[in-house]
């Protein structure tokens, strides 16, 4: 049976995403840590798209009577999870960044104080 157009489109897109993410990780443009969620999502959508009988059975359970819509729902939920995760990562980075900046400011002031004291101290040599 030849797959319908939507299944074909979604499979190709998911597969493309999978390849893109893997290639970015290979080039170190994306850390493994942050690629995992993307790979999981792309993989899940690909599997759902190809396993059409499974999708046809799962969708009605969720109250979705046009099965391919379930693909979009899955993608949407996956994106939400990824975005929330990234917001948490940004929060953590902001905090670490703030602490680094604070300590930089304090250390800089201490170095200047020390340098001034050193410049004023009588030279023993």
């Amino acid at each position, binding site marked *: 049976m030849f797959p319908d157009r939507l299944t074909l489109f979604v499979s190709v897109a998911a597969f493309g995403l999978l390849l893109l993410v893997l290639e970015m990780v290979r080039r170190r443009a994306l850390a493994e840590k942050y690629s995992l969620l993307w790979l999981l999502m792309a993989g899940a959508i690909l599997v759902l798209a190809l396993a059409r009988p499974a999708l046809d059975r799962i969708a009605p359970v969720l109250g979705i009577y046009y099965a391919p819509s379930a693909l979009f729902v899955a993608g949407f939920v996956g994106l939400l999870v990824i975005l929330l995760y990234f917001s948490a990562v940004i929060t953590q980075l902001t905090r670490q960044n703030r602490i680094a900046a604070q300590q930089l400011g304090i250390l800089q*002031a201490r170095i200047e104080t020390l340098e001034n004291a050193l410049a004023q101290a009588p030279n023993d040599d």
Partner: protein
Amino acid sequence: MGRSGAMNVSEDTKTLVIIPAYNEEESLARVVAGVRAAVPGADVVVINDGSHDRTPLIAEHAGATVVSLPYNLGIGAAMQTGFMLAQAGGYQVAVQVDGDGQHDPGEIGVLLERLLAGEADVVVGSRYLEKRGYITPWLRMLGIKILAGYVSTLAGQRFSDTTSGFRASNRRALQLCAMNYPADYPEPESLLAFRKMGLGVLEVAVSMNKRYGGQSSITPFWSAYYMIKVILAVSILLLRRAPRRGESTYVP
């Protein structure tokens, strides 16, 4: 109505006056000079929060120690930097005075007197405890009233001025602030945090000057945003057990 005469009480109590400043070149010289005259025994540090003007130069010329943050971190993080210094330097008392000149340094003595008498762990100068001719636009007054009412209810203590940044803290309070201090608009949130940690907070009446220079960053839109954010932050604070420990503690 600030008390005249220098406050000598800090000679034997190691005191750090923390002045957070973001682009305050117009007012800062006067603020630092006023503070040094009011509490000659205290050390004065200006936290330059990534200013684009001559704030750090002016602070240094006025005789303050300057700690410059590499970029603007916001008032909360700037204040926390000051508390980190106070903690690491073994200071017994930390005083916060805004860099824009709206606080009268002559009244630091009023705060210190009550703090050193052991009446509270944190003494806050309030603009609204007594009528002193300071006029606030009605919209902002409404926001201030709502915020004060909300924070007071949660804290179980009546506060008239939850956004006042004119404060004196003892060692216990400043250590807490060095460890954990709210980020953007820290004043109302920190009041509640103090109460949750079992610290005593006392408001005393102070006068308020018009800003010497610069422009207040508060517009109606940002006031509303500020109020909603603070209400959210304060509400969430209730759900937390205690401030997180071991975070951003600076040990030299």
